[in-house]
């Protein structure tokens, strides 16, 4: 396996989480970090800056789309939302993740 593929895997995890956060509805970058933090009961600390490259990547890949909007405190904010392709991608990644997790769990459970 090449280095890049390992990168893909790690990036893939953050991407999946971002997609999941957006499944709940359109949101701006800050809101996404909040959702992830709350969702993981504050276990997962997302490197806040790294969220944006991930969002831009997902947008390039066509999984999310974005537009300017106004935030709850009346500020201009970029809102992201899932596309159809993004929804499908989330399902795929979720399955792959479960498989992986099960496999890792099985190995760890070995006597």
């Amino acid at each position, binding site marked *: 396996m090449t280095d*890049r593929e390992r990168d893909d895997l790690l990036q893939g995890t953050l991407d999946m989480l971002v997609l999941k956060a957006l499944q709940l509805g359109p949101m701006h970058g*800050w809101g996404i970090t909040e959702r992830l933090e709350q969702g993981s009961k504050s276990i997962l600390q997302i490197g806040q800056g*790294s969220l944006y*490259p991930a969002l*831009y990547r997902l947008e*390039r890949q066509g999984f999310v789309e974005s537009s300017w909007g106004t935030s709850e405190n009346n500020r201009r904010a*970029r809102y992201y939302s899932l596309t159809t392709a993004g929804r499908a991608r989330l399902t795929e990644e979720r399955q792959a993740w479960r498989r992986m997790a099960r496999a890792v769990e099985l190995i760890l459970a070995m006597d």
Partner: protein
Amino acid sequence: MTPRKAWRDRLALLLGFRRTDEMDERFQSEMDFHVAMATQKNVRNGMATDEARRAASVEFGGRQQWREAARDETRSRYLEELLHDARYAIRSLRRAPAFTAAAVATLALSIGATTSIFSVVNAALLRRLPYANPDRVVAVCEWLTTKPISESCGVGSFSVANFVIWRSEAKSFDGFAAFGERRVSLAPPNGEPISAQARITSAGLFSIVGARPALGRFFTPAEDVPGGPNEMVLSYSFWKQAFGGDSSVVGKKVLMNTIQYEVVGVGKPELVVYEPVDVWLPARFSDALRTQPGRSLRTLALLKPGVSVERATAEMKRLAAQRAQDEPRYNTNMTAYVTPLKERLVGNSRTVLWTLLAAVGFLLLIACANVANLLLARAADREREVAVRISIGASPRRIFRQLLTESIVLSLASALLGFAIAIKGTALLVALVPSDLGAQILRDVSIDWRVLAFIAAVGIGTGMLFGVVPALQAARGDVQETLKEGGRGGSNQSRASARLRSALVVAEMSLALVLLAGAGLMVRSFAALQHVDLGFRPEHLLTARISLPGRKYPSDTAVAAFFKQAESRIAQQPGVRSVGAISYLPLTGERSVTNFDIEGRPAWKPGEGPGGDMRAITPGYFTAMGIPIREGRSFTETDDIGSEAVGVVSQTLAKSLFPNVSPINHYLLYDWGKPQRVRIVGVAGDVHHDGAAKETYMEIYRPHTQFAYGTMAVVVRVDGDPSRIAAPMRKAVREVDPNIPLASVLPMTELVSRSVGSTRLSATLFGLFGILGLLLAGIGIYGVMTYTVQQRRHEIGVRLALGAGPRDVVRMVVGRAARLSAVGIVIGTVLAFAGSGLLKKMLFGVPAHDGVTFAGVAVILAIIGTIAAVIPGLRATHVDPVTALRGE
């Protein structure tokens, strides 16, 4: 965002350019918002404003770093991924050298063959003529209204009288020129006389093709008048060859048939109209010629801008009708045609070339099917690799693209190799093209942008063609299944792929059958042509042309005396059996037709007579050629200029005009300068003068002494190899007159072989493609059956364990292959049957739906299909039941 801007952005994204300013602005704004929100949260949690802001900033991390990362992400990864995929593809292809070699060899050969044919098609059909206004240059010819226009209409069918009148009357043209050919003897200053091909043309020709001289000038319309100066233009190659490319040649005097001519210019290499010639001479049509009825000229005209071929045709037909009224004797039932020159030149070869391109395209398709089969087999081996990659997060789309990239890398590598093959192949192909055709339509077969574009398209296209389906198959794979069953065959996917492979083999078989059927028909046509009795025996015959300059041999007597002497000298050379001469040799395309009547019968109305081919011969001609005399006698030395006018007619003439009586002692009446009354003294066997595929004509042979021609073809029958006699023959002629060169010295068999050149070309290529297609289809069957046996090891093991004999196993495998072959053969036969009509024009002596051919190729294909299946079948008998079952 304006639509135009949106497109520009999308394009920039795709190509990997960043539109940084805009993205930076957006990133800055998002970041500011983010940090502001984080600050607010911190304040809510009890921090002081300054501290809260600082903490939020720290938590966000290095802005510059994330900005860079974000910028990178907005850039398309398309090219990057493509390169990565290509590298991966090369690695994985190198890991499978046997597969790669087999696929590349198959593809490179067929891409090479396809590109070779395309190069020729490109040169002959797609390239424009190298003239200033190629699309406006047209050929005009006169032709009978009673017969469909023939391709020979372009060879020479215009009368001087009509040309001169129409040149001044026709309004459709910016230029109108007529020309003819003549063999001349040329003596450069201080040089030996050499034989040269001259084109005698009206001066307008040069401006019609928009030619510029390489040196000096061309003769002008003002000079091209009766009594105009003796001027000559050299062709570029003749200038190089006979004058050593002497740049001071302009102004030099050259003896042409003993008359002094001044060289006024040299044409550029691309100055070629129809066949290449050595020198260009002004026609200077004299008033005497203007009234001559004979039709022997060719013409070219330049359409005025905006004038269509149809409009020009309509005008010429009107003029022709006018001439038929003014001069009914020579113009009744005659009309005129206007055809774009390109069309005239290409003529029948258009069909031949497109057909060959289609044939080689089929071969390429078979090769693609074969490689697709190899890929499917490989995909089966790689199911696990793909499953693992999917399970660690590679998307199916990514896998598909990866596999397709592999196919395209494969096909591009093959195209590169195929290109090298094509360069060689094109040269071989051009050598195969009959030279007379080649000289006209294949002037420049060099590689141009069309050929490059073609091979690039084929390179990528074939990769897509054979790669898409296997890649889709692999990428759609069910990961769970594959991993669970440990990669053994038998999954849905491998069953689907087995079906696909069978379908591919069926397609291969049917395409191979189409190719073979075409090959069979062409080969049979060629054989039929070879079996046609041409009416003479071409073996051991050498032919050469001799042209006597009119100035030195002004009278018929002088001409006759020369040939008599020359023949007797040649006859004295060792090994010579007989010698003769004729004005228009068979298979050279030369003929001269005139109307005649039979004494005692009502005369034919103008334009309705059958027309006889007039040929002058020496007494030895029939013997030397081996043409039998069916009735009466041949000519003898006593048929002299002063004796009774006699003639020998061909069997075709005898049979059609004298069906129930002997033609002997009947009289033929015709005009040739003055009224002729010729007694028929003999009937000669028919000769296919224009080739085996053409009808035999009504020939009227006259003794050379009574009907002298300054240009004759001498035929010499010898013992053994005829080309050995060329040197002694040259010497013998020089003894009679040292200034007379020999031209076109060729064995008669060479002329025969040239006359079937285009059929031979098609038969050779079709045969080659057919055999290659058959081979590939055989390999395809072999591959699929090998794979099937491998997949069914378990089943075979069970059968063997249950007592089936080796014979049953072989029968099972071969039976399966036979079913595939049978389906392929049936489909192929239907396709071939539907398509063979397109070959009709190229066939001879065999119907397009020839049952023997179709049955024959079906049998051949069935045999190959069976043989290809027997080997894996035999291998299957070696399956060890114990091992096969333990593998469960």
